[in-house]
């Protein structure tokens, strides 16, 4: 018999339909993946099972958990289920814990509430649970506060809270999306172990097909609130019967066409970074002890040649973005020099930087934060034209904006719209249009596709590749995603704790990593091909 059974579940919030006739079942000890792009209704499905929906949401259909009709249950019945029989892990570990309570209090709270255990008993159980999720007493006493832990450690605390009472069902909503690949692999391992130890059912919600394939026995693919396909993971993904399943799988593994590859050493370097460091004043621990500076970037040297695409990869917090900002002259190095087109740009005044800025543009990660919501597209895309020697007249400016928009696949009529009228992928196109309007020689792209859904991501990667091929723009592609690095770059630099630990031709480095840091990255990186192959093998 199923542990959880969802039949004909439909959900509306206000008048907006969110879910339509969703079917899903989980047996005890089974891992079911729920996959879909943003807005597909994955999280709402989870919140329906927990009955933690927003006020205006109305659900219909049937949700049965362990014989209990969830949609008809009283609130006190739900309270008894939540945290005891159903545990839930959320996406954002940084904000999921109460900042003013210790981790011990937060883990013990649910135990005390449900079992009426004494404080001491509950704390003892909380201690055991924290030990189990990899937070040993010596380093992580119960008296720790969340702000004293890193993101990965906080997610372990959230998992400890969810699993403290050995629930029958664990719901994990994008549990690793906010973490880097190495932490992701660790957290997924932990979840897998906990599930098999306690014979829990696990509903794993993710946008990442590779992660779900690695983890789950069966999967359900959701799109715009409707189930597209559901079934056994290995056969569903190897057969790819449903067109949307095929589309998702292809997009996840997409490699844009880049016929002209760049030969290193073929030209004088466009960008040279020499022994660059960036230290930040550290947090003062005591009034009487000077603070230790934190070295975010530590003696880094690199070169990028014209038309070359270089990927800079590394775990979060390794200093990638700080380095990018220094290259863009948005931050000053504490040591070392950066040369662009043979000229030193470090320490130059804003006015003297203008010619360099004209040839060096930027694309950021967040398609929503990259545009001033108060300005129209024409003004936003034209902003770098400010760098030209001679300011174009209004008509000419419109012409140039229209041309740039055309190059990224948008129409001239988009010029008079506001950024909020575009989707995430379109905004990233706008971002690229803004970056190429001055015909730069180098574009620094800081995680330009990591906020995008896979199908959109494939399109944007194609666009990047096309512009590199057509216009000969060199890229410094900063990414934590090895698939993107492989798809986009001629050469890869691996950064770890502020230093560059490995460099070379992309395929060579990623296929035969030599440094420990690179090996860890490669081993942890989810890979759909590999995951499907492993699944097939397991099933024989």
């Amino acid at each position, binding site marked *: 018999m199923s542990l959880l059974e969802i039949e004909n579940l439909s959900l509306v919030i206000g008048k907006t339909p969110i879910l339509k006739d969703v079917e899903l079942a989980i047996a005890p000890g089974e891992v079911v993946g729920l996959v879909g792009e943003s807005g597909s209704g994955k999280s709402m499905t989870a919140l329906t099972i927990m009955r933690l929906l927003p006020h205006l949401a109305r659900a219909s259909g049937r949700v049965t958990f362990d014989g209990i009709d969830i949609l008809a249950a009283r609130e006190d019945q739900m309270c008894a289920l939540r945290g005891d029989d159903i545990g839930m892990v959320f996406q954002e570990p940084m904000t999921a814990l109460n900042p003013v309570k210790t981790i011990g209090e937060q883990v013990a709270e649910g135990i005390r509430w449900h079992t009426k255990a004494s404080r001491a008993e509950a704390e003892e159980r909380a201690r055991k649970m924290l030990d189990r999720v990899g937070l040993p007493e010596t380093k992580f006493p119960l008296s720790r506060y969340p702000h004293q832990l890193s993101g990965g450690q906080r997610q372990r605390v959230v998992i400890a809270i969810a699993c403290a009472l050995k629930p029958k069902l664990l719901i994990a909503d994008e549990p690793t999306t906010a973490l880097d690949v190495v932490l992701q692999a660790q957290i997924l391992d932990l979840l897998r172990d906990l599930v098999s130890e306690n014979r829990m059912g696990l509903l794993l919600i993710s946008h990442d097909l590779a992660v779900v394939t690695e983890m789950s026995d069966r999967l359900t693919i959701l799109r715009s609130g409707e189930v597209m396909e559901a079934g056994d993971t290995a056969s569903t993904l190897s057969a790819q019967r449903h067109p949307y399943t095929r589309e998702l799988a292809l997009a996840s593994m997409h490699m844009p066409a880049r016929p002209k590859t760049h030969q290193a050493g073929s030209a004088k370097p466009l960008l040279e970074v020499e022994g660059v460091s960036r230290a930040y004043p550290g947090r003062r621990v005591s009034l009487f002890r000077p603070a230790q500076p934190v070295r975010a970037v530590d003696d880094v040297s690199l070169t990028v040649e014209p038309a070359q695409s270089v990927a800079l990869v590394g775990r979060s917090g390794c200093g990638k973005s700080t380095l990018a900002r220094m290259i863009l002259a948005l931050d000053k190095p504490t040591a070392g020099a950066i040369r662009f087109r043979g000229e030193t740009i470090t320490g130059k005044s804003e006015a003297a930087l203008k010619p360099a*800025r004209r040839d060096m543009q930027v694309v950021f990660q967040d398609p929503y934060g990259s545009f001033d919501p108060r300005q129209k597209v024409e003004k936003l895309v034209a902003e770098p034209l400010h760098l030209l020697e001679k300011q174009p007249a209004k008509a000419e400016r419109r012409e140039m904006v229209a041309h740039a928009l055309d190059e990224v696949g948008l129409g001239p009529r988009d010029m008079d719209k506001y950024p909020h009228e575009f989707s995430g992928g379109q905004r990233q196109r706008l971002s690229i249009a803004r970056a190429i309007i001055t015909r730069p020689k180098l574009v620094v792209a800081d995680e330009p596709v990591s906020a995008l859904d896979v199908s959109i991501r494939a399109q944007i990667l194609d666009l990047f590749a096309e512009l590199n091929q057509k216009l000969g723009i060199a890229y410094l592609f900063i990414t934590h995603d090895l698939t993107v690095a492989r798809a986009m770059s001629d050469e890869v630099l691996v950064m770890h704790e502020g230093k560059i630990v490995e460099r070379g031709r992309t395929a060579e480095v990623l296929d035969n990593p030599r440094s420990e840091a690179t090996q860890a990255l490669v081993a942890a990186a989810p890979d759909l091909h590999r995951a499907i192959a492993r699944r097939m093998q397991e099933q024989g």
Partner: protein
Amino acid sequence: MTMRVDLPDETLAGVLAKAFGNRSFLIGFAITLLVAAVALLSFVWTPYDVTKLVIADKTEAPSVAHWFGTDHFGRDILSMIMVGARNSIAVALVAVGIGMGVGVPLGAFAAARGGIADEALMRVNDLVFAFPALLSAIMITAIFGPGAVNAIIAIGIFNIPVFARVARAGALAIWPREFILAARAAGKGMTEITVEHILPNIATLLLVQGTIQFALGILAEAGLSYVGLGAQPPMPSWGRMLFDAQTRMVTAPWMAIFPGMAIVITVLGLNLLGDGIADILDPKSRRQR
């Protein structure tokens, strides 16, 4: 403490549509409009002449002839409230202007510059906030002499750090955004970014704070006039009317009731207007409903 500023992504038509659906805004706007209209009307017409003393009619209870009664000099209370509105609005409005005009550039500059400039501004702010505003306003008007102009200056000075603080907090929340980095990568300088990107995005915050300070200004002006340091007789002012009423609470309570209600309604209207604007333009508060 950092401040969260959610950037609205609305067109004018969308904003207007929401404005018409927002109860706070509609009521607040209507009251504010009414008070402003009454003040304007008082320039051309009042039921009675407020400069003429009619001792025969002194301290008359509300009647058909004098809706709100008369004061101890026989002046019509309604007419005095109408004329007094001018004074209240003018003082509070100019004081807000002073606060915004000086405070916003200061706050925006401190946020853009950071470092010592920012620290200095914050310390000066601390200093000003250490003086209870009304006490200092009383000192200032006592030093430079009572009168409407000095009241404006006294209230205005204390609006400066308020606006500086709001502008700084709002600007600090926007500076790290990616679109500001993009503007910097496009070679825009500190001033250009502040004018083109920062100020338009904190305009809502400033507008809301403006209505709050406007309302507080009306209260402060009334307080100053009440202790005899605001507008001087014979110029009618709401605070002064309450002072005159104080000793006559037993015999002529209407002298206190109606001017006070004028203050309450005006301040209420402005506060509702501010709440309404915040609701309409701030997506965060919208999420909360």
